[in-house]
């Protein structure tokens, strides 16, 4: 009897632990662990910038971002300026259409595209993969410039779960 006494609590301990398993499953089912996409919009400076980007990702995941620019006024030198998080903890596999040139602006990456006339739309797709060792909050902001003049900016950060 002495050996069996402590066994009475075991079923409840086990049930509580099993119930706790439902917590991460519930979070995952609602998309809290990635990778639902947010659509963010900014504009007002002669162009409309729209970005589709996930808020949360996990190591190793393949993901896609969509950046759409609609020019309201002519833009001689449209440039997309990506925050450092787009490349620091990611493998940037493809950019379609490819920019005319790429440059660095501090830790940020500048993608240059040809002239946009009023009413023109430029849609850029980026295919990326999260580095398996990456985690933390990454700066995935996007800025639209006409040469060096800021037109629109979307501040965004992506949480990378280990």
């Amino acid at each position, binding site marked *: 009897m002495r050996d069996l006494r402590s066994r009475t609590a075991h079923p409840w301990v086990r049930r509580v632990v*099993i119930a706790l*398993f*439902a917590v*991460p*499953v519930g979070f*995952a*089912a*609602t*998309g809290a*662990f990635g990778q*639902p996409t947010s659509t963010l919009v900014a504009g007002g400076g002669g162009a409309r910038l729209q970005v589709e980007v996930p808020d949360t990702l*996990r*190591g*190793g*995941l*393949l993901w896609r971002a969509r950046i759409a620019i609609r020019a309201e006024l002519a833009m001689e030198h449209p440039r997309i300026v990506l925050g450092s998080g787009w490349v620091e903890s990611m493998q940037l596999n493809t950019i379609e259409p490819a920019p005319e040139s790429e440059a660095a602006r501090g830790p940020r990456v500048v993608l240059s595209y040809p002239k946009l006339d009023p009413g023109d739309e430029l849609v850029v797709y980026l295919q990326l*993969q999260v580095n*398996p060792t990456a985690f933390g909050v990454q700066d995935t902001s996007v800025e639209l410039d006409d040469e060096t003049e800021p037109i629109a900016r979307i501040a965004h950060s992506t949480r990378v*779960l*280990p």
Partner: protein
Amino acid sequence: MDLVLRAVIVFFAIFLVTRVIGRRELSTMEPFDLILLIITGDLMQQAVTQSDYSLTGGLTVLATIALLTVALSYISFKVPKLRPLLDGEPLVLVQDGEIIERNLRRERITVDELLAEARQQQVASIDRIRFAVLETNGRISVIPA
């Protein structure tokens, strides 16, 4: 969301496969069973986690599979009508020294395999068996006459 969904689909796919291939394969480890086991594990891992190398993803899948296992076990315990579907039913292979050939064929068990099982349970011949039953876990219980 997709991770949980993929884990649920793969769980039921593997459950279906193990129910369809026959219970005998569950308890033996013949070369073909080994191949099935290795290939299933490798293919299903890719189907569930795909390119996901994260700890979060792995733990989520583990928790999902654990919950499904407990849920099915609970359903089987609470709903006796579903037990044959979830766990299968014992199958009598020998009754009063008479081999039931139809049941042996159904589970692809040879008389030699049956005799080997009987010998392992200290029974020398078929006519000394009162009952030989293929249990739901794939093992054969031999009750001597």
